């Protein structure tokens, strides 16, 4: 019953505002977290058995009549579902204490769950239009969540995010229309098969360009990144964590990769474009991050840079490169989720995001400082944390596939990443305690618990990286490395 990944959060979201009339805090907290915990357990424990014999295809029926709800679960979608459930649950646990002062908690959770349902739906979709639709589901919920604080900054950021997102979806929709016009179908398998038979390089090129612009905007690759450094820092911390950790990856990287590799087939030209865009984002955003004083803004630029690594890895197109890219996607989701949560703890304790105003907070918030350090070092690629292994795999893949220049750029950017993260750690947590913060206390229980949960995952995956790669990453990379055959052969309904 993989439809549960979409149906459960939607149903819980539907009843939450009603429940919120009766109980303002406890029941909504409990319901939302229980739903996400269930999805996590379902993805982590049942998911792997489900796909043991190849991709699971589900055609739903209603009172014995088949209905046109077709879902597919393979290694790649399962990895994404796991990432969504993990980061989603951590952000939701964090919200228990963090969202207390915002009010309207039941509505907040409802929007949060609709966003999760949208992402899950996108990941399970087998059809181009479903991808577009579920992308919009997650996006509409996320606009409201970015603006949830109702401050001037929040509203402005949400509006900017909305406008650029609409441009992105318009590009995606145009491309879907071109593909539908050519092949007469929207189904991944049918489109992939038809494109193999049709000799329409130019039209596929145009469709790819539109998809690249649309998904590039969604993934905030440079030069399509302008909205992200405003939208992500303005949102409440758990939402920043989900946006940066998950949404840009699901509606940008996942959708782009699935369509380019499994439906269109990765051509050498497309591979070069992806690698160049990835490398450009990686470098430019790292320099931009270095100059930031706002803690969350620095993290936002870092997200753009790290998505660059992911796209660079996947763009290589070799099995090792794809595995490295996907592993980094997973690791970055956890580590960036963690960092946005710790930045939320700091912001709530001090009331500021300005790094220059902070200082010495480690004395007052030791757990937050430690978890922040884990996240920062993980993204910077310091062994033995998880981020180190994924970057290492990407760099080895680059060298193996004959791209030594890209490999050098990746290594140098990693040094740059370590530089700005150490700068952040030093300015915020180390050094002399700023007297203003003498009364600051460690974050409340659930906020700390959520960050510790993610930090432990970062350390644990770093130590057990080889079993993580074989159980979760390799099946996902195999699907992508199979190219169009992964879909044509086994996805027909």
């Amino acid at each position, binding site marked *: 019953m993989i439809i549960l990944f979409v149906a459960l959060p939607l149903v819980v979201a539907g009843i939450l505002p009603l429940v919120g009339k009766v109980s303002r805090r406890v029941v909504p907290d409990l319901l939302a977290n229980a739903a996400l915990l269930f999805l996590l357990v379902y993805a982590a424990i049942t998911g792997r058995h489900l796909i043991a014999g190849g991709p699971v295809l589900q055609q739903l029926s209603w009172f014995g009549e088949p209905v046109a*709800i*077709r879902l597919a679960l393979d290694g790649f979608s399962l990895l994404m579902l796991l990432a969504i459930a993990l980061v989603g649950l951590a952000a939701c646990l964090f919200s228990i204490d963090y969202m207390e002062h915002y*009010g309207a908690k039941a*509505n907040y959770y409802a929007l949060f769950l609709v966003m999760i349902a949208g992402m899950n739906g996108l990941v399970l979709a087998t059809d181009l*239009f479903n991808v577009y639709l579920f992308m919009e589901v997650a996006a509409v*919920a996320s606009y409201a969540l970015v603006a949830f604080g109702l401050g001037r900054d929040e509203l402005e950021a949400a509006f900017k995010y909305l406008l650029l997102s609409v441009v992105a979806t318009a590009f995606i929709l145009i491309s879907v229309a071109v593909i539908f016009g050519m092949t007469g179908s929207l189904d991944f398998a049918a489109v992939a098969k038809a494109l193999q038979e*049709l000799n329409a390089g130019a039209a596929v090129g145009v469709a790819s360009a539109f998809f690249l612009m649309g998904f590039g905007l969604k993934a905030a690759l440079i030069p399509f990144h302008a909205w992200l450094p405003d939208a992500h820092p303005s949102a409440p911390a758990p939402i920043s964590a989900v946006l940066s950790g998950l949404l840009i990856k699901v509606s940008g990287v996942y959708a782009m990769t699935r369509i380019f590799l499994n439906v269109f087939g990765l051509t050498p030209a497309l591979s070069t474009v992806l690698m160049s865009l990835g490398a450009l984002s990686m470098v430019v955003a790292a320099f931009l991050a270095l100059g930031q004083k706002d803690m969350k803004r620095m993290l936002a630029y870092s997200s753009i840079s790290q998505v660059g690594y992911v796209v660079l890895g996947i763009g290589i197109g070799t099995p090792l490169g794809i595995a490295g890219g996907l592993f980094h996607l997973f690791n970055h989701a956890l580590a960036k989720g963690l960092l946005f949560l710790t930045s939320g703890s700091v912001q709530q304790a001090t009331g500021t995001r300005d790094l220059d105003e902070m200082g010495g907070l480690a004395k007052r918030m030791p757990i937050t400082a430690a978890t922040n350090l884990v996240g920062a070092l993980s993204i910077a690629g310091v062994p033995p944390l998880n981020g180190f292994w994924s970057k290492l795999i990407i760099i080895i893949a680059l060298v193996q596939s004959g791209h030594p220049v890209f490999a050098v750029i990746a290594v140098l950017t990693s040094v740059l990443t370590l530089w700005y993260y150490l700068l952040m750690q030093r300015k915020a947590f180390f050094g002399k305690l700023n007297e203003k913060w003498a009364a600051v206390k460690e974050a409340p229980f659930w906020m700390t618990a959520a960050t510790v949960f993610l930090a432990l995952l970062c350390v644990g995956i770093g130590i057990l990286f080889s079993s993580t790669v074989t159980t979760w990453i390799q099946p996902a990379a195999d699907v992508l490395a199979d190219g169009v055959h992964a879909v044509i052969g086994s996805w027909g309904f």
Partner: protein
Amino acid sequence: MIVQTALLIGLVLFSVLAILLRDLLKSAISLAAASLFLGIIFFRMNAPYAGVFEISVVAGLITVLFILTIALTKAGDEVRESRVVNWVFPLFFIAFIIIDALVMKGLLRKIPALASGAETGTFGDVLWKGRTFDLVGQIAVILAGVFAVLALFRKGDKHD
């Protein structure tokens, strides 16, 4: 061909006007006109259901809602149009038409003919039997919209 081109030009013209006009009422009416053109194009392209929905919902219902809202909130002052409209609009319009024509000319012969025919089956068939998963998505979008309105227009119950 001429009718089609005229309809497309009308669509783009009114769409751009809807964005550039500062008077909200005129802007809403331009949007309705653009939607009307789009609806007619849908009819001519053998998509009557899309045409009916476009004209009745977008051109009709939504415009009524816009105009009602504007009528309820408008202070009654005269709105002075921005000068930008006077020169940006023609410029933008000409540039758009040229780029569009060039792209389409380059593409037309390269895209194979439309593989699918006109809408097959009745509207109900397509919606309920062909695109059921989209309905789930639509329900989710509507839920998101409702929750967004509830959340963003909530009373200031901070620290309650």
